[in-house]
C-alpha cells in the first residue's frame, strides 16, 4: 500500500512536469505576446518584454519559471498588473469550490436516485421520464439551460435572484445548471449497472434469505451498482469544483472560470500557467483519491496488486 502510494505520487509529479512543459511551450507558440496589442508602441513593447524577462530565450524562460515554481512562486499576472497569480486563485477558487461542491452533491443525490428509480421501474413511466431528463441534460448546452432557468424562475416567476452569488437563494440556479449534465450522466450509468445487479444471482440469494425489499435495495443492489459511478467521479469532481466558465459568467459568480478565459484571451502567460497547473494538480489528486475509494467500494480490487 505504501509502495503503491509512493509510486502514484512519483507518477503524479511526472505528469504535472510534463503538463507544465507542454503548456509552457504551447502558449509561447501562439502568435503574438501579451504586449502585441495596438495600445503598445514598439518601444514600450520592448521595454515590457524586458521587464517580464520575455525577451530571453524560451528555454531559459522555462527553467527560470520552473525554478520559481519549485519555490512556490507562481509569478505575477501580466493582465491584472502586479497581482500575484496565487492571490487570484486564492480569491476566486473558494467561489468555484462552493458552487462545485453544491453541484456535486446535488448531482450525486439526484443522479443516483433517478438511476435507481429508473431501474426499479424498468420500461414504465418513471424510466422514460429519467431518459428524457438525461437526454435534456446531456444534449442541451449549459448556457441554454442556465438562461432558461434564469428567464423562468428569476424573470417570469421572480422566485429567485437573477444573478450574483451572495445568499443561499443565489446558489440554487447555478447549482442546478452546473449539475444537470452530471446528473444525466450519473443517472444513465446508475440505471445500467443497477439493471445488471437486479438480475444477478446474489440478489436472488438475498431474497431467498427473506430480507425486506428495502434492505436488499440498499445493502445489496445500490451498493454494488456504485462502482461505475466511482470511476467517473474523479474527473467529474475536478471539473465541477474548478468551475464552469459558462455557468459562472451567466450567473455572475466570481469564480475561476472567468480568469481562465480572460487569461487566454489576453495571453497572460503566468496566469495561464498557474491555472493550468492548479487544475492539473486537482485532477491528479482527485483521480488518486478515487483509486483509493475503489478498494472500499469493491473489495475485489486490491490496491497495489499484492495478495493479502
Amino acid at each position, binding site marked *: 500500500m505504501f509502495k503503491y502510494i509512493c509510486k502514484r505520487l512519483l507518477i503524479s509529479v511526472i505528469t504535472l512536469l510534463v503538463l507544465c512543459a507542454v503548456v509552457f511551450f504551447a502558449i509561447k507558440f501562439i502568435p503574438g505576446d501579451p504586449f502585441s496589442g495596438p495600445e503598445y508602441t514598439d518601444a514600450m513593447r520592448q521595454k515590457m518584454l524586458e521587464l517580464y524577462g520575455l525577451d530571453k530565450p524560451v528555454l531559459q524562460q522555462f527553467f527560470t519559471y520552473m525554478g520559481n515554481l519549485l519555490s512556490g512562486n507562481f509569478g505575477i499576472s501580466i493582465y491584472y498588473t502586479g497581482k500575484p497569480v496565487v492571490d487570484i486563485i486564492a480569491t476566486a477558487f473558494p467561489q468555484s469550490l462552493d458552487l462545485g461542491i453544491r453541484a456535486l452533491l446535488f448531482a450525486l443525490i439526484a443522479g443516483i436516485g433517478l438511476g435507481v428509480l429508473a431501474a426499479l421501474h424498468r420500461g414504465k413511466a418513471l424510466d422514460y421520464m429519467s431518459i428524457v431528463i438525461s437526454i435534456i441534460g446531456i444534449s442541451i448546452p449549459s448556457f441554454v439551460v442556465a438562461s432558461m432557468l434564469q428567464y423562468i424562475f428569476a424573470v417570469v416567476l421572480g422566485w429567485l435572484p437573477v444573478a450574483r452569488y451572495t445568499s443561499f437563494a443565489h446558489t440554487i440556479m447555478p447549482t442546478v445548471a452546473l449539475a444537470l449534465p452530471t446528473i444525466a450522466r450519473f443517472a444513465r450509468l446508475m440505471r445500467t449497472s443497477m439493471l445488471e445487479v437486479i438480475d444477478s*444471482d446474489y440478489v*436472488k440469494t438475498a431474497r*431467498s434469505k*427473506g430480507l425486506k425489499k428495502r434492505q436488499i435495495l440498499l445493502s445489496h443492489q445500490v451498493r454494488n451498482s456504485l462502482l461505475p459511478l466511482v470511476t467517473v467521479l474523479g474527473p467529474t469532481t475536478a471539473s465541477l469544483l474548478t468551475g464552469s466558465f459558462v455557468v459562472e459568467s451567466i450567473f455572475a459568480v466570481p469564480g475561476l472560470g472567468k480568469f481562465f478565459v480572460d487569461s487566454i484571451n489576453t495571453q497572460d502567460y503566468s496566469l495561464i500557467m498557474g491555472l493550468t497547473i492548479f487544475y492539473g494538480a486537482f485532477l491528479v489528486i482527485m483521480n488518486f483519491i478515487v483509486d483509493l475509494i475503489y478498494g472500499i467500494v469493491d473489495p475485489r480490487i486490491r490496491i497495489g496488486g499484492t495478495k493479502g
Partner: protein
Amino acid sequence: MDEILKVDDLSISFQTYNGEVQAVRHASFSLKRKEVLAIVGESGSGKSVMMQSILKLTPCIRKSGSIWFDGEDITEFDDQQMQKIRGSKIGIIFQDAMTSLNPTMRIGRQISESLRRHQNMTAEQARKRALELLTQVGINHPEQRYRQYIHNLSGGMRQRVMIAIALACKPKVLIADEPTTALDVTIQAQIMSLLGRLKEELDCSIVLITHDLGVVAAYADRIVVMYAGQPVEVGASRDIFYHPQHPYTRGLLASIPRLDADGAQELTSIAGTPPDALNPLPGCAFYPRCKYAMRICQDEAAPNKNFSESHCAACHIHDAGAAETRVKLGWRETL
C-alpha cells in the same frame, strides 16, 4: 402431519417473445418430514423453476395448482408473507456459489443478515451464531473467514458458506438446487456428506435437485424423475434404481457410465433431442424419443399407475390392454 411440503397439480409458465413457455406442467409431489427427496431430470426439465416458484423467487405465472407448506396453503401468499418463510422456514442453496454470494459484502454479514432479520438477534448474538455456523459447515478459522469476501475462498468453501446461509435459521426444509454441479468430484462428495450430517443435526427435510444420478443413489430416500416439466416417475430410491417403470427412467439409468465396462464400448445415451417447452406435445412428452412408443402415446398423456404405495409412473406401456405390445416391444418387467 407427515408431509411438510405438498405441491398439487402445479403449472408454471413464462411469457417470452416467442410465446408461452410451459416450464412446469401439472406437477404433483410431496415432501415428508426428515426425508431427502431428489428431483432428477435433464436441463430444462423444470426442476429448478418448480422449486424456486414455491418460494416465489422467479417472476413466472402460476397457471394452476396449489402449494402447501407445514399444513398451510401458501399458494396465494404475497411477497411480505413469503419473506417470513424464505430463509427462516425454507432455505435454498443455489448451484453456483461464486455468483450467488454478494462479492462486496463480508461473508459474516451475509450469514448474520438473515439471523438478524428472522430471529431478532443483536449484532453480537448474530455474530456468535454465524461463527458457530461457519464451524458447523466445516470452515477452519471462522473468525478470519467471517471478515473475508468470497473471492478469498475456494469453490468448496463458497458452497459451504452458501449452506451456512441457507441453514442459519434452522429451516424445516432445505432446497439444494444442484449444490455440487460447479464443484469437482472430491469436493462434491464432501459437500454431500456435509448436507447429510447437517440434515441429521437440524432435523430438516432436503429437496435435492440434480441431474447426477450418482449423487442421488447415495443420499436420496425418494426420487422424482421429471421430464418436460412433468414428474414421470416417483418412487423410493430402491424402486427407481431396481424397478424403474418409465422408459425415460430406464434410459437415464442405462446412460450412467459403468466403471466395469469395456473401454472400447460406446457410452449409452437417450436418442433424440430434449422437448420443446414452447410447443408441448399433446400426448406423452417423451414419445418421440421412446423405444416403446405406441400409437396412443402420441395423442394421449398417460395416467399415473401405482406399483406400490410409494411408487408410481406415468406410461401407457403399463395399460392392461398393452400386454401384447409389451411382449412385442421387448419390455422387461425388471431390469
